[in-house]
């Protein structure tokens, strides 16, 4: 298939699209599926087949619509009418929707308000296709403008031009550290040596984060397109996507998508009849958090234990099998097609001075609207949590937001107006991380939260370097002493010293950031630590302290 052939496919699909004045989109991401989206879809299809009087009706299974807690979600698109979204859809409701469509009077029950604040305040770029395309049909993606960026890169641009656009976009890595993507691409492009690799980090190890999963499940071609463009730009012919073993649905959708792309000559030998060839293979993780770290991930793809190694040399010069390797996160690649399509400068208009574009966040914990959102960088935490997230349920009050997972920190209420970008979050002792945002109300104990994350790091430490292997065990023991009410003040001093030592001396990012949750909770919630230590009391009422010395009350 040539670039012109692809244009023909796109035109044909768009015509078919225009001829179908009505689309019913069921969210078929893992969350809604577990709430019964499969039965809703069956009911839609059965009723539509029975009626046989619904020409121009298309039923699609689509990517995450975002509002996971209200699943299964069903969205109705009609030509010339506003979209309607149903929450907690049932098979009966679905059947009623199909039957009533011809008269144009849809059922009222379970409809979300037209301008639901959850959707109104968002700005989708990465998630632009969520709800609009069927995640298992490449034709839908093509009709929505998909693979146009790859066409453009291959037919009108040189690798250097592509890299120039990525640099101009100001895009920074979405995997956590925020390294400038354009700079990384040009380093790999300049690296000497044949047989370069492009790797997509879909390990998404940070618990409480599911952005990458949703992108892979809902719009896998976007990631494939981003990787192919990267391969073209840096001069690589082979790509790997390393997906967490916990995401079977993402793996299967990705495999389907890769096969479809190969059939249309968008992957494989001589892409779009040009001299450029690019293959993608999927590798499945096996449940080790540290494998999200880039050098450990490389070891894992090579079939070894996922132990990190010191950097430099960075993967950009010495990566997979010793070859120059580009490693980026799922969301980073997903941003590439729009950057190439509309130009880096247009992308850079979104966001803040040093953090451009949008960020996808996974909202979870003590918040009304749990789910997936995308906002421009620089949006305040207050807007995210209260306007989009709907605030704190059960009449409780906000206590802290946790970002960055086990490498991140807790943000207290006093910083709610902070614009969320890489620098601002780092400035108050947390990190952007990959986008997991967990809200805690007054029923969460911050010392126990620190203990929880330290337990995580202790279990997930690969054991290669001593500060991390032994330090996390010791810090966890100290935190356990606090949460069980047997700690003394000297334990706190020891904890702070250890936190500093482990941060400075660990081999990889896991150990270097393992103390962050401790340091950040100490910074913002020191009084809670003191209550545990001096009064053997847990102000939030979480920690049980059976062994605590008698307290004079």
């Amino acid at each position, binding site marked *: 298939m040539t670039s012109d052939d692809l244009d023909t496919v796109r035109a044909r699909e768009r015509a078919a699209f225009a001829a179908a004045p009505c689309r019913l989109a069921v969210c078929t991401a*893992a*969350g809604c*599926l*577990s*709430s019964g989206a499969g039965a809703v879809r069956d009911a839609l299809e059965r009723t539509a087949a029975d009626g046989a009087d619904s020409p121009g009706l298309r039923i699609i299974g689509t990517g995450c619509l975002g509002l*996971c*807690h209200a*699943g299964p979600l069903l969205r109705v698109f009609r030509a010339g009418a506003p979209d309607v979204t149903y929450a907690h859809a049932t098979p009966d409701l679905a059947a009623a929707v199909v039957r009533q469509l011809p008269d144009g009077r849809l059922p009222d029950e379970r409809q979300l308000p037209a301008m639901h604040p959850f959707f109104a305040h968002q700005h989708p770029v990465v998630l632009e296709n969520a709800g609009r395309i069927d995640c298992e049909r490449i034709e839908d993606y093509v009709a929505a403008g998909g693979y146009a960026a790859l066409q453009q890169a291959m037919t009108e641009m040189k690798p250097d031009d592509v890299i120039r656009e990525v640099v101009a976009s100001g895009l920074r890595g979405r995997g956590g550290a925020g390294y400038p993507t354009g700079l990384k691409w040009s380093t790999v492009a300049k690296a000497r040596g044949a047989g370069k690799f492009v790797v997509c980090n879909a390990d*998404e*190890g*940070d*618990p*409480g*984060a*599911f952005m990458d*999963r949703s992108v892979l499940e809902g719009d896998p071609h976007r990631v494939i397109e981003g990787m192919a463009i990267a391969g073209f730009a840096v001069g690589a012919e082979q790509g790997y996507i390393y997906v*967490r*073993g*916990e*995401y*079977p649905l993402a793996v299967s959708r990705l495999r389907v998508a890769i096969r479809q792309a190969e059939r249309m000559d968008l992957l494989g030998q001589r892409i779009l009849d040009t001299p450029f060839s690019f293959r993608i293979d999927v*590798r*499945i*993780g*096996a*449940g*080790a*958090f540290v494998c999200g770290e880039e050098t450990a991930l490389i070891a*894992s*793809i*090579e*079939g*070894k*234990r*996922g132990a990190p190694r010191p950097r430099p040399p960075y993967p950009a010069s010495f990566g997979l099998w010793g070859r120059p390797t580009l490693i980026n996160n799922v969301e980073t690649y997903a941003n590439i097609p729009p950057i190439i399509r509309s130009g880096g400068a247009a992308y850079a208009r979104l966001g803040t001075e040093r953090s451009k574009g949008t960020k996808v966040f*996974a*909202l*979870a*914990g*003590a918040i009304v609207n*749990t*789910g*997936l959102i995308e906002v421009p960088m620089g949006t305040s935490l207050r807007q995210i949590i209260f306007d989009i997230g709907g605030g704190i349920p059960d009449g409780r009050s906000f206590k802290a937001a*946790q970002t960055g*997972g086990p490498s991140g920190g807790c943000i207290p209420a006093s910083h709610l107006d902070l614009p969320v970008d890489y620098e601002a979050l780092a400035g108050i002792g947390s990190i952007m991380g990959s986008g*997991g945002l*967990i*809200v*805690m109300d007054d029923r*969460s104990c911050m010392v126990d939260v620190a203990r*929880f*994350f330290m337990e*995580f790091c202790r279990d*997930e430490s*690969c054991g290669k370097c001593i500060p991390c292997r032994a330090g996390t065990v010791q810090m966890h023991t100290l935190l356990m002493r606090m949460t069980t009410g047997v700690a003394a003040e000297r334990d706190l001093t020891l904890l702070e010293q250890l936190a500093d030592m482990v941060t400075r001396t660990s081999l990889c990012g896991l150990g270097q950031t393992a103390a962050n949750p401790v340091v950040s909770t100490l910074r913002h919630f020191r009084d809670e630590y003191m209550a545990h230590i001096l009064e053997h009391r847990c102000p939030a009422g979480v920690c049980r302290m059976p062994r605590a010395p008698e307290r004079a009350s």
Partner: protein
Amino acid sequence: MTAPDAHREPTTTLAPTAGPTTAGRPADNRFKILDATIKRHRRQPDALLEVLHTAQELFGYLDRETLTYVGRALRVPPSRVYGVATFYNFFSLKPKGAHSCVVCLGTACYVKGADRILAAVQQAYHVPPHGTTPDGQLSLATARCIGACGLAPAAVFDGDIAGRMTPAAAVARIAPWMPHDQ
């Protein structure tokens, strides 16, 4: 809810003799599938993880013979095979129960009280976390986030994700798998 017994051969999970070096026994299809995977990867040592994934899918767990077999086929020393198999949480060197319950203990689920779900299941069926009941019916495991955080607390029952769990609902979901005198 359907129990997956239909496609599960009775010997898969509990017979420790189901190793691949059982030459002379009636040909077991599963070895053929394993061999096909090994061949597809052209016996490359790098394919160790892929092959172990396949082996575990086929046999339910990795016993000593399977590990030795895979090591020979890929020309990887036993120490490295064992090192890899024990490094990754997914690989199990012990047989698993007929049914599985995985309770997510990730951050979102932790905030929503997942520890109470784990405790309830443990107590109701006398099974330790990462353990199996003596009758081999139920294996209990924990996870570090299954990506269903929007529906926290979440658990997985025989591969099906269930959101908004409560301790009672988790116990009830397992009940049909267990002998009635529990």
